């Protein structure tokens, strides 16, 4: 059986949340995602025993517990792994995304129970109890899907699916009616496939904008110790959130809070100052700061304008981002400008957009000289508005730069990713011209979107062939 993954605790904010995996790759994925003292949990997780460690997802990690149950001694009768993380949608969805990255797929409503039933594992009481749950889940899924399908995104996804469907029809018609279709003028399959693959990619690239719309723009503040990062946080929040002191290395853990500005939620994360240190706690704080920046939408590189040696270039390029999301936006923020003659506001770099920067896989670090520079004073508040406006405009650029409506749900991202991969393989198939393989991939692409739209390839396909082509003798 393939391996399925889902968030098993109720949606929304909670103290902890559980992500569960079931299937023959569950243990392998647990080893890839969960680390005990920096080493893979693959061999270290023991059946039925909770273990403490680090849950690594794309661009962030969380400390929590994991437990595995080996087949057949588990709820589903298959290998199961569970991650007990901190609560919060972003964390849990991130862990799910990481599992998908290692080969799991999102579970359908009731699928864990279905497997338990297929393997003869659930007892009577358990079985009776799940029906309501399944119906509730599938009703919720149907409602969510129908809300989505009525919107622009639904139209875009249907259009993509229809495009794949039409390509399948052409290809199938040629296979089942080779002589009749010789007399038909058919579109170039290879080119059509390339166009469809590009559309799928474009839709995926909107995932980041979609996430920002739903959860807010993540801004991480990086910089040398005492550059004024915590003061900046307090300035944008307009409250004393972080402890500010003249002692370098005051902030050691991540400090997060959010504001709403111009209708956009902005999540700020203050971090430990970046420097080489032998202090274990501070070192770990620095690591966290860098990791947090990897998952951010906007990174503020804070420099003390009174410090002649203020420029700092941390290595920000490590840890490849997921393919789904384009790279981050970088802004240089000069603080304490009230001491250096004001001159507040944007001073260099000029216009930018996510689209421009996303073309560079390393987030444009190499061109650090061209980052927009914002001069401000945290103490008096001058220039802070300019910074916030810039952040909001970054979000708005991402929103308008996206070719189609916003995609927010991990389920949709997972389906689109599967679709996009299958289309890429179908395109490869055109090189060898083996239509039978191309069709396997096209069908996968079509059915992947079918998980969103509810239409899978089948009888419709055959109906369409007969309505579109004059085939048959």
């Amino acid at each position, binding site marked *: 059986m393939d391996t399925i993954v889902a968030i098993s605790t109720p949606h929304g904010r909670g103290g902890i949340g559980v992500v569960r995996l079931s299937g023959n790759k569950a243990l392998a994925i647990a080893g890839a995602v969960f680390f005990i003292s920096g080493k893979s949990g693959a061999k270290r997780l023991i059946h039925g025993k909770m273990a403490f460690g680090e849950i690594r997802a794309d661009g962030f990690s969380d400390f929590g517990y994991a437990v595995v149950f080996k087949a057949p001694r588990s709820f589903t009768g298959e290998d199961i792994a569970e991650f007990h993380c901190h609560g919060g949608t972003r964390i849990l969805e991130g862990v799910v995304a990481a599992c998908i990255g290692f080969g799991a797929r999102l579970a359908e409503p009731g699928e864990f129970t*279905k497997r338990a039933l297929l393997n003869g594992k659930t007892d009577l009481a358990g079985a009776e109890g799940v029906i309501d749950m399944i119906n509730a889940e599938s009703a919720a899924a149907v409602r969510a899907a129908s809300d989505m399908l009525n919107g622009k995104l639904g139209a875009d996804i249907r259009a993509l699916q229809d495009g794949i469907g039409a390509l399948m029809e052409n290809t199938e018609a040629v296979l089942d009616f080779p*002589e009749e279709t010789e007399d038909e003028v058919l579109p170039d399959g290879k080119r059509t496939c390339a166009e469809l693959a590009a559309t799928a990619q474009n839709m995926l690239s909107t995932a980041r904008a979609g996430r920002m719309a739903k959860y807010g723009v993540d801004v991480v503040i990086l910089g040398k110790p005492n550059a004024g990062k915590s003061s900046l946080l307090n300035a944008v929040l307009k409250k004393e959130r972080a402890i500010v002191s003249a002692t370098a290395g005051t902030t050691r853990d991540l400090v997060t809070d959010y504001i709403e500005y111009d209708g956009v939620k902005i999540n700020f994360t203050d971090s430990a100052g970046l420097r080489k240190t032998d202090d274990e706690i501070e070192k770990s704080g620095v690591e966290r700061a860098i990791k947090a920046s990897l998952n951010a939408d906007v990174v503020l590189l804070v420099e003390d304008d009174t410090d002649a040696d203020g420029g700092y270039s941390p290595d920000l390029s490590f840890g490849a981002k997921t393919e789904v999301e384009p790279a981050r936006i970088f802004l240089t923020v000069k603080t304490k400008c009230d001491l250096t003659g004001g001159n507040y506001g944007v001073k260099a770099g000029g216009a930018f957009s996510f689209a421009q920067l996303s073309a560079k896989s390393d987030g444009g670090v190499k061109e650090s000289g061209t980052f927009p520079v914002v001069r401000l004073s945290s103490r008096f508040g001058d220039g802070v508005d300019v910074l916030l406006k810039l952040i909001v405009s970054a979000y708005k650029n991402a929103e308008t730069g996206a070719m189609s409506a916003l995609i927010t749900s991990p389920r949709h991202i997972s389906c689109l990713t599967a679709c996009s991969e299958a289309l890429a393989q179908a395109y490869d198939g055109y*090189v060898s011209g083996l239509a039978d393989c191309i069709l*396997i991939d096209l069908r996968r692409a079509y059915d992947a979107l079918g998980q969103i739209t509810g239409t899978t390839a089948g009888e419709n396909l055959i109906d369409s062939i007969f309505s579109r082509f*004059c085939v048959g*003798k």
Partner: protein
Amino acid sequence: MMKKNYDVIVIGAGHAGIEAALAAARLKATVLVFVTELKAVGFMACNPAVGGTAKGHIVREIDALGGEMGVSADAALLQIKMLNRGKGPAVHCLRGQEDKYLYSRIMLEKLRNTENLTLAEGEVSRIITEGGRVSRVVTAAGDIVRARAIVVATGVYLNSRIIIGDESRNEGPSGFKRSASGLTESLRGLGLEIRRFKTGTPARIAKDSIDFSKMQIQEGECDIHCFSHLTDEKLTVQQPCYLTYTNADTHRIIKENISRSPLYNGEIKGIGPRYCPSIEDKVMRFDKERHQIFIEPEGRDTDEMYVQGMSSSLPRDVQERMYATVAGLENVRILRYAYAIEYDCIDARALYHTYQVKHTEGLYTAGQINGSSGYEEAAAQGLIAGINAALYVKNEPPFTLSRSEAYIGVLTDDLVTKGTNEPYRMMTARAEHRILLREDTADLRLTPRAYAVGLASESRFARMQARKAEIENTLARALKEKPPHAAVTDLLCRLGGEAPKKGMTYAELIKRPEVSVEDVRALHGFDDISEQAFFTAVTEIKYEGYLKKEEADVKERARLEERLLPTDIDYSTVSGLRTEARQKLAALRPQNIGQASRISGVSPADITVLLVYLRTRKS
């Protein structure tokens, strides 16, 4: 001489009836076959061809199972071709042009010379049951014959009606006698829903009235294998077909006379197949400048030619003018006019996968009566029905094929689970795992099954095993052995690729997308291996990734097939099912969870609910 008592009675000796009768007799049942007229045995009432896309697969499968169609089709071949070459091995399909009269004579001889089998000219008018089981038939002549199993294979002969323009006659195809003495009523009385389907055929024209110089010649292929796994010879002398086109004049005549077409003026009410449209359908529904017309020979010793692509129900005078507009047919002489035919059939959802009627033990239906069309589809059903009738008589477990095992499995499951609203034709698009159902693996997939049941002969089984050994030998060697480096470099450079690394094995070379079976064959590393075994081995290597994925998928689905749904489930009491699913399940009564999951309107959540229900019921 007809006796008073048989194990199995087969009604009809068309493509379904023949396979049913031969299979049952070869499984040692005593068999009586009724046919309306001896010259209608195995008659190809429409196109003089066997095979084609997906249908070619079915013929190979029938043959692998020990059926007769492949062997006889090979013996009566006029031309053979492999369709879809270059589009991938999964969709390679054989198609043969056949001497239809020779084919019919060969089949008649086989029926006459098969042990345990009696052939009788006559018509069955009633089927009588006792206690929910078949017990005997009554013939139109008033004879009563007892039987433990009955296979109804009436094809398009049941209450059939021929329509040409405003003429209509109560007869079977090609002027044969129809079956009209009450069998339909008898079937209805047994609870079967009777439907009316329609199909049609083009005119037959005189060869000497055709100007072939105005057409494109269509040759066969002399160097390919035939349908049967038992046929070693290749068909070296072939007869051509010809391609020509309709034109604006043809279309104008049709449009001007469309009101005289019974298909359009409401005279014909039966449901016709979309994949086999009449020429008036093609012209009215599709705005094309021309439609293809293929002229095909009907036999070696006949002057008749078949005009494929121009079936019609228009009146004779319109047909004459319409055919004469086609390039090369200016002086055409029509020997038999195109006609539409309507006939009675049943809704096959009343059947199990064995083709037994759900509520009547021992009663089987096969072929066009089940709503299918095509000789191959009919023969496949006849074969499975015949095997099961014999097994039933012997009190042995039934024989069925799954969707992942054979096109025949797909055909059966589609008919009995999904049902059909038009004459059903097999298409490769209907098979979800076509890469596992290739025509080159029919023997490997099915001969062991048929051998186990007793239908495939020792020699057929031995041939399959020899081929399997050859394939395994090739696979093992391809993984280790390396073709000469210079030859590989030549090949890859010729194909526009880069020079390969040294020490590339055959398997690595085969996996390259640009490299074909023929390219590898030409390296002469496997000259001791037969072409067919080599082709299969290379395909297995080339498609390894896809095959593995598909096999895993099949395994997952198989688990659902194993979950049987009891026959007495009252779906109205299963809590949690959505209304649509409840209605569909109650109407179709699937036998297992896998079948239930293929019913449109039954969602994955409904399936889980069913699993829960099964679990609670068990406790």
